[in-house]
């Protein structure tokens, strides 16, 4: 043995390190210096086994990778550091457009939804619109008061899901979560459909294209949200405030005209309902109108669910946003309903022009800039209402994923600290629903509100139980508020479920238990996996394994095969090469070439007269496995072509074999790639 061998062996056994220190003597005594060889250019910073990836580490290297990264940076912005999470939080002024736009925007169509139901009983029945609006606002006041209690009790967010889970149990929590998930998807679909309807009110020629336009808008919103919550909020703030100011100005002008008695000519719908009505005015019809009007209450849960999105003090900012949201909605909704009923506006049977459009046309005239401002800002805010879904769904999904009720990807933050999986999945689901319902608001609304009121009822009743259990100071007031909230939201839930059952609510009621079962089964899977993987106290030592049995399938004797065989020999001495031959002559020929190679590795040759490579090989591995207790390791040599399109020129046997062995128990698969441009072997590299 030469003197260099132990040194070589010692170097071989050195664990890999990102930092190597070499001491050099220098020319003079005392001039010693240390050369620090570090991965400059990798962007990995740190020392002594602890390293941190930097922005440079994340930079793509290949042309395709760089192009993709450039496109991604253009669409969703530059990658953010995790420390920027605090900067991504929102204040009240940004929280209002992000989390409250759904509720505020409901004022754009809540009046019409109630009127459309009442109009079935004839024009005379429309006088009931105002009392119904007052009832909706009363329910909203209860909801706002109750939700403010939810925020104070659960300042870490989670909303109805967390409240229901903690106080009623897991199933109730999952019911609330499922209801909210459905509601968020519908929020996106309904709001987008309503936004397109608002645009088609002053540009009727786009009406036939409402579905593709809606889909494009959903894609735009998804991209906006992938850019991060704060940036989305900044972009969406201006239209929300423009809507509030524009609509407020229109209501003030309308009220002024009504007060002085100067009533302009009333705008007529292009296709009015039958003035005499097509059905009698029954209690059920009034309840249906109330149920449709209470669509205006949707979105009020988003603030309680999104408390962690707020800047500190989170709970206080959330409550301020909630109260502002309720006040703005109530003012606009009551103002619009009052003017619509006082001026005798009637809904359009074909949904081509909205009630708000006709009302604004009546008050300020079709050529007034305010008309365009109101219509345009209405369209924008209805689209932004969809943004509430994009804020709520991913956050709730992440909470569920952290609790292992949804796939883990939903809890992963993307490059802009947004929950990308949730955003993309929500966009896809909303797009499917929008397409399935032909982009009609009227067809989608019956599906809506059930989820919200189910979640409200569960969280309100959950809080009643919580106050009763804890009996903190002031619990009597809290329990009273939440008890009233339970009764009111529960009543609305029953009304909505009964009156809209045949119109489509049955779909939601059918979907709910299915989603609950799905979430529950996901959790059961994760629990089983954890049970299988978790290390108990006594097992906290690395097991010692013997050398495995290594099988190297060899198709032909070439460089790729030689590398795989050399590597296999370094893994274990229990090594066997196997060749599948399609003919007897081929087998004999291969045997001769193997002998010429002079290798000490034993070879088995399996003839396959049915010309299949995989089946005999898999059976061979099975047979070896049955005859030997040691784990099987299959070392595959795989040729990797230089260009992606060259893949099609190769049979990819190794790839197919890998796929076949992936789920085989007691089998380790090692892939030894051989790159077409790699002229070296796996031995130590110079330098």
């Amino acid at each position, binding site marked *: 043995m030469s003197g260099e061998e132990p040194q070589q062996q010692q170097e071989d056994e050195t664990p890999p390190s990102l930092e190597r220190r070499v001491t050099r003597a220098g020319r003079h005594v005392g001039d*010693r210096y240390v050369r620090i060889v570090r991965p400059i250019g990798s962007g990995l910073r740190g020392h002594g086994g602890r390293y941190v990836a930097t922005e440079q580490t994340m930079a793509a290297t290949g042309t395709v990778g760089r192009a993709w990264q450039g496109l991604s940076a253009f669409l969703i912005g530059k990658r953010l550091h995790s420390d920027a999470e605090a900067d991504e939080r929102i204040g009240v002024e940004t929280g209002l457009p992000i989390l409250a736009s759904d509720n505020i925007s409901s004022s754009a169509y809540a009046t019409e939804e109630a009127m459309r139901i009442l109009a079935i009983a004839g024009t005379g029945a429309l006088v009931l619109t105002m009392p119904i609006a007052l009832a909706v606002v009363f329910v909203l006041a209860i909801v706002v008061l109750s939700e403010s209690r939810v925020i104070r009790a659960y300042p870490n967010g989670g909303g109805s899901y967390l409240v229901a889970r903690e106080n009623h149990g897991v199933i109730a929590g999952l019911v609330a979560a499922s209801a909210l998930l459905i509601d968020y998807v519908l929020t996106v679909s309904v709001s987008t459909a309503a936004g397109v309807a608002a645009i088609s009110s002053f540009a009727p020629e786009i009406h036939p294209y409402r579905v593709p336009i809606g889909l494009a808008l959903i894609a735009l919103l998804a991209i906006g949200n992938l850019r991060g919550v704060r940036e989305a909020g900044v972009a969406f703030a201006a239209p929300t405030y423009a809507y509030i100011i524009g609509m407020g100005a229109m209501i003030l002008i309308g009220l002024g005209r009504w007060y002085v008695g100067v009533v302009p000519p009333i705008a007529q719908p292009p296709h009015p309902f039958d003035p005499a009505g097509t059905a009698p005015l029954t209690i059920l019809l009034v309840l249906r109108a109330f149920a449709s009007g209470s669509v205006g209450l949707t979105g009020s849960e988003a603030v309680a669910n999104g408390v962690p999105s707020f800047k500190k003090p989170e709970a206080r900012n959330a409550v301020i946003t909630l109260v502002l949201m309720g006040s703005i909605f109530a003012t606009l909704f009551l103002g619009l309903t009052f003017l619509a009923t006082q001026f005798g506006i009637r809904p359009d049977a074909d949904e081509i022009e909205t009630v708000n459009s006709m009302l604004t046309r009546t008050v300020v005239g079709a050529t007034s800039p305010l008309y365009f401002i109101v219509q345009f800002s209405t369209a924008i805010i209805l689209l932004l209402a969809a943004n509430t879904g994009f804020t709520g769904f991913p956050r709730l999904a992440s909470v569920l994923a952290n609790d292992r009720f949804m796939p883990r990807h939903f809890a992963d933050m993307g490059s802009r600290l947004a929950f990308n999986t949730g955003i993309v999945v929500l966009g896809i689901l909303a797009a499917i629903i929008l397409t399935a319902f032909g982009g009609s608001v009227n067809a989608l609304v019956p599906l809506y509100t059930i989820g919200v009121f189910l979640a409200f009822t569960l969280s309100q009743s959950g809080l009643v139980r919580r106050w009763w259990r804890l009996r903190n100071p002031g619990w009597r007031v809290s329990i009273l508020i939440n008890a009233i909230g339970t009764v009111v939201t529960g009543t609305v839930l029953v009304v909505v479920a009964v009156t809209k059952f045949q119109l489509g609510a049955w779909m939601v009621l059918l979907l709910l238990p299915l989603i609950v079962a799905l979430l529950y089964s996901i959790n059961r899977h994760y629990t089983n996996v954890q049970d299988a993987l978790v290390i108990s106290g006594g097992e906290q030592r690395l097991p010692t394994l013997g050398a495995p049995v290594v099988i190297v399938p060899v198709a032909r004797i070439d460089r790729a095969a030689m590398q795989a065989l050399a590597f296999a020999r370094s893994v274990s001495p229990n090594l066997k090469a196997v060749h599948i031959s399609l003919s007897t002559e081929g087998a004999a020929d291969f045997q001769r070439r193997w002998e010429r190679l002079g290798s000490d590795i034993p070879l088995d040759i399996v003839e396959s007269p049915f010309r299949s490579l995989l089946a005999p090989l898999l059976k061979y591995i099975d047979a070896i496995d049955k005859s030997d207790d040691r784990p099987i390791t299959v070392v595959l040599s795989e040729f990797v072509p230089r260009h992606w399109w060259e893949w099609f020129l190769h049979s990819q046997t190794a790839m197919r074999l890998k796929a076949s062995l992936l789920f085989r128990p007691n089998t380790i698969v090692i892939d030894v790639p051989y790159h077409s441009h790699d002229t070296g072997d796996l031995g130590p590299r110079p330098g």
Partner: protein
Amino acid sequence: MQPKRVLVALAGTSADPDVIRLVAPIAKSARANVMGIHVIEVRWNLPLDAVMEAELDRGEQLLESAKKVAEQAGFSLETELLQAREAAAAIIDTAVERKCDLIVVAMPFRKRLGRVYIGRTVQNVYVNAPCAVLAYRQEQNA
């Protein structure tokens, strides 16, 4: 003179980018190998191979920046981080070991007691290096 191996000593001052751009025409015309080094000076109360995290991070960052400046200037810069008791000795020893025929040192414009202050590292390299030394002094208002 057409140097084939150039060693650029980088101290992490504002003069570093200037000196890399200064070397660019030499590197390109002579197709010279250019190496940028930064020496972390270790105090005598610490062992020579002590891990000084802040200095290592700073050194790594300034070498990465230097690499980028070199790339923009159109040549490739090899980099190395060293630890020594005295920077000048390590710079000269590395130049000797790598058979460099030119050492480039940079200094920002500084004054002490009313006179331009060169600093002991630049002075020692200038006096003791066996190869050619190019010293770059930054302009007054840089």
